[in-house]
């Protein structure tokens, strides 16, 4: 009982993953800044942003459903925090594990995007509506290839349970054996986090702030925090499946930070794709590529 509470509130869920999310968000912003020849934000910047947002007034626009308006950010944060319990965060075994937890984790991660889209379509604001439309369109384009990319390792291991998949691969780097799946997983992560080049949903130079235009104060802070948590969990998941598992806190740090550097480089190099370009990239190229990868895995068998 006490163990469960600890896992839920302190480690690996709750406090640990929130702090981790803030730190990783800072690292991401700092790296981008350095790559753009800037100095970049100070180490406490995401924490200060979140605290300030939590202290600000929360305005509810006229005409929205008050229950849903407050429920969506809560559900987004809850989904992200729950997903933290099923991945090997910090290099220790997941707090909970059962047959099929990989699928549950991916679904929970998708909750944030879904909630962002629904939150945007709640208000009558035209920018929020366009943003919501783009968020949901993007969700439907990357989600399936991303899921299939993470299923490659599962198929090779013959199990849907993260623990068993990692045990069966025993520290082998699947990146070498399933390179296409790895690339799709990385790009899927970028799409999930709405980073460049897949940031058309929140394109703040064209549609103000996308789906979250009408959110202020606490609701915005919750979405902001969930984004950070999702960054950490996504990095953990991809590096556990493709970069030879995460056996120790040191391996966790080294592999997730390496991966973070990788996606930040892509983010700094790319410009924003239009939403139709995003969709055609995912459905014409990525989904075919990942299906080829799955076919190879099935034919070759347990590699």
């Amino acid at each position: 009982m006490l163990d469960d509470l600890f896992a839920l509130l302190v480690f690996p869920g709750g406090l640990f993953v929130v702090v981790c999310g803030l730190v990783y968000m800072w690292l991401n912003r700092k790296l981008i800044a350095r790559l753009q020849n800037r100095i970049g934000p100070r180490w406490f910047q995401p924490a200060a942003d979140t605290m300030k947002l939590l202290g600000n007034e929360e305005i509810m626009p006229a005409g929205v459903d008050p229950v849903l308006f407050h429920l969506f950010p809560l559900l987004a944060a809850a989904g992200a925090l729950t997903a933290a319990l099923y991945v090997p965060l910090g290099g220790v075994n997941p707090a909970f594990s059962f047959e099929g937890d990989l699928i549950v984790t991916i679904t929970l991660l998708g909750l944030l995007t879904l909630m962002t889209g629904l939150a945007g379509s709640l208000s009558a604001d035209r920018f929020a509506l366009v943003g919501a439309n783009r968020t949901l369109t993007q969700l439907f384009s990357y989600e399936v290839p991303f899921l299939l990319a993470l299923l490659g390792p599962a198929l090779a291991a013959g199990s849907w349970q993260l623990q068993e998949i990692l045990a069966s691969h025993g520290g082998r780097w699947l990146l070498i054996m399933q390179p296409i799946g790895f690339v799709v997983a990385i790009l899927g992560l970028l799409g999930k986090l709405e980073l460049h080049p897949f940031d058309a949903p929140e394109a703040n130079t064209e549609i103000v702030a996308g789906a979250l235009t009408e959110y202020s104060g606490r609701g915005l802070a919750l979405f902001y925090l969930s984004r950070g948590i999702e960054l950490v969990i996504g990095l953990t998941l991809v590096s556990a499946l493709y970069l030879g598992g995460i056996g120790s806190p040191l391996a966790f740090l080294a592999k997730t930070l390496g991966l973070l550097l990788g996606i930040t480089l892509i983010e700094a190099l790319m410009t924003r794709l239009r939403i139709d370009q995003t969709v055609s990239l995912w459905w014409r190229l990525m989904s075919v590529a990942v299906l080829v990868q799955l076919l190879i895995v099935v034919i070759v068998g347990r590699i």
Partner: protein
Amino acid sequence: MEPILTWARVNSIWAVHFNSGSCNGCDIEILSTLTPYYDVERLGIELRGSPRHADVLVVTGAVTRQARDRLLRIHAQMPDPAFVMAVGTCAIGGGVFQGCYNVVGSVSDLLPVDMAVPGCPPRPAAIIAGFAALMERIRKGEPA
């Protein structure tokens, strides 16, 4: 709680930029302030698109009849505490547009201005100094 909140407010300033009738000189200077050369993100300042996310309303130019209602509406859309920063001589006192047939007045005639940055147009360094002075005022708890 209050000291932590003040600390967070001082260190994280999200601004929304509104042109209420400026000649565009001040706006160009604000854009230069946001370039990598000055890099205001290192001070926690970020430009936001939505007034709902912003803490500081940066207004440039004398307020015209056309812009008056929009300025008031955008200010009303900001969550509390919302600060107002007037950039440029026109925003402060009307400047060269003072007394024009289409000008209602300066920003301070319509909204409580928390920080004024004089200059025609003010240089980016002056705008950053204005932000720093605003942070100092927030730290002391001066603006309501």
